[in-house]
């Protein structure tokens, strides 16, 4: 029904709302004297969570719009009180103008000291109460965005007690979109409420059905239990329809999860497809290149945090080239320092790079300590959006896109650039290439650098979904080798198809077998698959290969 556009919009509006709510000054037709309101506000501080809940109720009952920012600040956990006097205040963190200000009058209260200030504590149930309260109080707000968010909050709670308020809001509402949300909320309340008439309930079913997805299914399933017999068939058929949709979407959801897991595998493996697949270096330090990429992201973000916090949303864009260059250079250094002495001895490279991986891990641990480092998600990579019945998280979405971009870019580089041509020439016939004037040492270094640089890029992306610690690489190395070998060594397309196949297979097995058994099954399947095709998915046929 409403489609993706609508839901994405909702998502965006929702995100902007908290900010706007804080900034929007609601015109104050004070029904309460400042002093009275202050008493109510100050009552928020003392006592237990239960007392605080009562205090919130009283504040809401006042109906005074000036209470809204106070409640919002409390919801944010930024409302403070003065330990000595018990006065509830705003601080600069809570959006007060001065250092410390009065939440009702806005007066400057800088005679209070920060040290005496204590947070007014909220817990989850209090947050729920606050959200409902704010929703209630802002349902008639003049700002459409505030109203929309209020309507959504009412829809979430669907408290029959708010029916009257909701009805008046619906009749006053002019915005179609907001009105629809309110009507949906009303329908849900109807289905919930034991007092609602059969007609009201019957009328509510299609409205709820139109919400679609899991929420509608839940509402209807819950309603079915208490529904009068007359409307049971209506609800049941609605449920059946939704469940059918759901089952179809679940398959799609699994495919998406699989693609997303596959893209992570692809990112982790693609650098290895170069260093191992193309050059034949059994590069056990590949995971450490990924890890260095992730730490580069950390360092870039730290610098940005300290020097230019405004650029934070650009941190990844800055980290990508930085990580590529840094890990690429490390790769070149490794190639020049160690690998080049080992060409033609592929298994020796395993030992040397394993040793290297230990050294790199330990070095990173010495520099950054063993603790997990914080790498933040930029705002555009946080949260999720809905596409029909699919819930897609932004970070996974971007990682899928990013993985495919890296893949395509790599293909293009190998196919169409001079360096790519040289790389293929050298790896296919070193002597011939060198006699044709290609500087093979340079090409070797560049190839290894490219593979390592791509691993660094993967590190930037993977830092967004996992943790950044010296062991990060170890978690990906085995999977990466599986992917490259499964796909067929030396074939980039094999790596792509291999990664996606393993990802999707994993996600279809997981719901039945569980995560642990699922992984075991995948490994056994890989072993059996290699028996069938001893050179991977995309093996070349012909006699030259088998020599």
């Amino acid at each position, binding site marked *: 029904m409403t489609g993706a556009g609508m839901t994405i919009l909702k998502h965006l509006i929702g995100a902007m709302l908290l900010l706007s709510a804080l900034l929007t000054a609601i015109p104050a037709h004070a029904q309460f004297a400042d002093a009275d309101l202050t008493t109510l506000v100050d009552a928020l501080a003392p006592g237990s969570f239960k007392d605080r809940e009562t205090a919130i109720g009283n504040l809401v009952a006042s109906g005074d719009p000036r209470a809204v920012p106070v409640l919002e600040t409390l919801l944010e956990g930024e409302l403070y009180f003065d330990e000595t006097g018990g006065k509830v205040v705003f601080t600069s963190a809570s959006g007060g103008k001065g250092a410390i200000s009065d939440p009702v009058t806005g007066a400057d209260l800088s005679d209070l000291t920060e040290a005496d200030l204590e947070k007014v504590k909220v817990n989850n*149930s209090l*947050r729920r109460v606050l959200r409902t309260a704010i929703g209630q109080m802002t349902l008639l707000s003049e700002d459409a965005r505030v109203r929309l968010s209020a309507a959504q909050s009412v829809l979430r709670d669907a408290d029959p007690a708010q029916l009257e308020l909701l009805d008046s809001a619906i009749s006053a509402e002019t915005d179609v979109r907001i009105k629809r949300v309110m009507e949906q909320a009303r329908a849900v309340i109807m289905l919930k409420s034991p007092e609602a008439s059969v007609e009201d309930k019957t009328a509510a079913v299609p409205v709820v059905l139109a919400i679609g997805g899991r929420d509608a299914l839940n509402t209807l399933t819950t309603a079915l239990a208490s529904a009068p017999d007359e409307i049971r068939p209506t609800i049941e058929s609605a449920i059946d329809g939704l469940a059918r949709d759901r089952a179809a979407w679940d398959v799609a959801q699994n495919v998406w999860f699989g693609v997303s897991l596959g893209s992570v595998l692809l990112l982790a493996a693609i650098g290895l497809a170069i260093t191992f697949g193309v050059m034949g270096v059994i590069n056990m330090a590949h995971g450490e290149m990924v890890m260095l990429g992730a730490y580069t992201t950390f360092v870039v973000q730290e610098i940005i945090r300290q020097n230019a916090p405004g650029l934070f949303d650009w941190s990844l864009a800055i980290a990508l080239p930085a990580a590529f260059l840094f890990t690429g250079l490390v790769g070149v250094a490794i190639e020049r320092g160690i690998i080049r002495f080992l060409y033609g001895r592929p298994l020796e490279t395993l030992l040397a790079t394993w040793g290297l991986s230990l050294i790199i891990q330990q070095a990173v641990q010495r520099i950054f300590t*063993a603790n997990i480092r*914080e790498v933040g998600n930029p705002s555009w990579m946080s949260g999720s959006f809905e596409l029909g019945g699919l819930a897609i*998280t932004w970070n996974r979405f971007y990682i899928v896109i990013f993985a495919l971009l890296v893949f395509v870019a790599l293909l293009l580089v190998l196919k169409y650039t001079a360096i790519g041509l040289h790389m293929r020439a050298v790896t296919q016939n070193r002597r011939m290439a060198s006699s044709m004037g290609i500087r093979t040492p340079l090409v070797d270094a560049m190839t290894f650098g490219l593979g390592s640089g791509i691993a660094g890029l993967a590190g930037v992306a993977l830092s967004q979904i996992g*943790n950044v610690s010296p062991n990060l690489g*170890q978690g990906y190395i085995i999977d990466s080798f599986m992917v490259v070998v499964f796909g067929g060594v030396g074939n980039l397309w094999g790596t792509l198809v291999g990664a996606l196949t393993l990802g999707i297979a994993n996600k279809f097995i997981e719901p039945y077998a569980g995560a642990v058994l699922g992984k075991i099954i995948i490994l056994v399947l890989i072993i059996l698959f290699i028996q069938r095709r001893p050179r991977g998915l995309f093996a070349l046929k012909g006699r030259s290969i088998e020599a």
Partner: protein
Amino acid sequence: MTVGNRMIAGLGLGVAMTMGAIAVPAVAQDETIKVGVLHSLSGTMAISETTLKDTMLFLIDEQNKKGGLLGKQLEAVVVDPASDWPLFAEKARELIEVNGVAAVFGCWTSSSRKSVLPVFEELNSILFYPVQYEGEESQRNVFYTGAAPNQQAIPAVDYLMENEGVERWVLAGTDYVYPQTTNKILEQYLLDHGVAAEDIMINYTPFGHSDWQTIVSDIKTFGSTGKKTAVVSTINGDANVPFYKELANQGVMAEDIPVVAFSVGEEELAGFDTTPLVGHLAAWNYFQSVDTPENEAFISAWQTFMGNPDKVTNDPMEATVIGFNLWVQAVEKAGTTDTDAVLDAIIGLETPNLTGGIAKMLPNHHLTKPVLIGEIQADGQFEVVSESELVPGDAWSDFLPESKMIEADWTAPISCGNYNTETKTCGGSEVAAVQ
């Protein structure tokens, strides 16, 4: 000489050299009291354990500033068991036999503790184990200064039932012994409290699991039946960061489906932005945010020692501190570091918790601890929303049929770790053999 015997000669020389290398320190001087620190400094557990190594160095440094112990300076002997469980046993043996340490502070995982238990028993030394664990154990030579299940899991579930009205439960954990046991206990506890079997979902994931899409999505589905749902997470260390990131991104809000974790502390939260996770919970016996003078003093001394004003503290650190303080007191009381004397002296000793209240060493080698429930804040700290009275640690869970009749009491006349109150005997004769 053939290649063979040259090499063999070399081998013999190598072995001899090692013997020398390891054996020499055995004839050690006695001007200091040595304390063993057995925490992984490399491998997968280094993330968690290096901090505890630093904590020990800090505590020993502080104690030496106060004049040491029994007039001698303390000396830390640090080894790296490298997250390798059999190596823990080897290193424990080395600490006790070669370095002659008076006590060992160490281990994190249950596997590592299980691996060293026989060593401490055989060589009759002392281990202070500072991490919350699954219980079902009480060994003569081990002091469990972290939480037993009744000091963490059960109070957390109680809190959710009472304050959040949770009726439907997801028990999600890493597939190893601690979560398995804890979940077993919790499942029984929930069933006893009238939760229907279909309202409990149990899910296990491998170590270091990084792809949480399916599971978080399943949790959302499970939690959307209208009944209030909560997740009890016994997910291990480094799998938590991707788990919470996925929770945040899939929009699982604490107000809808709160997640209460037993293995997530300040250190783990330092790994990501917690803004979207505000309100999710953790149950511990210590939070850095707890506002007591002891804690404040500890944190600032620690941060000064580490030279990093942002260094966080966490629960296993506090457990290490308490264990260390109790050991120091016991040695002072006994006037010697002799194992048997210290084992006797330490029972009943008390030291203040950093979070208030008194930690008392019980006859079952566990402590009294307050249980704190904290909500995650946007700054990566926890806000305490509930604090219990002091709870005595119970080695043997009362919610498992096999262990409810077992008690541990290391004081006379029982003096055993698994006294069966029904048969009035000690279960394993290992204990009898030692005594």
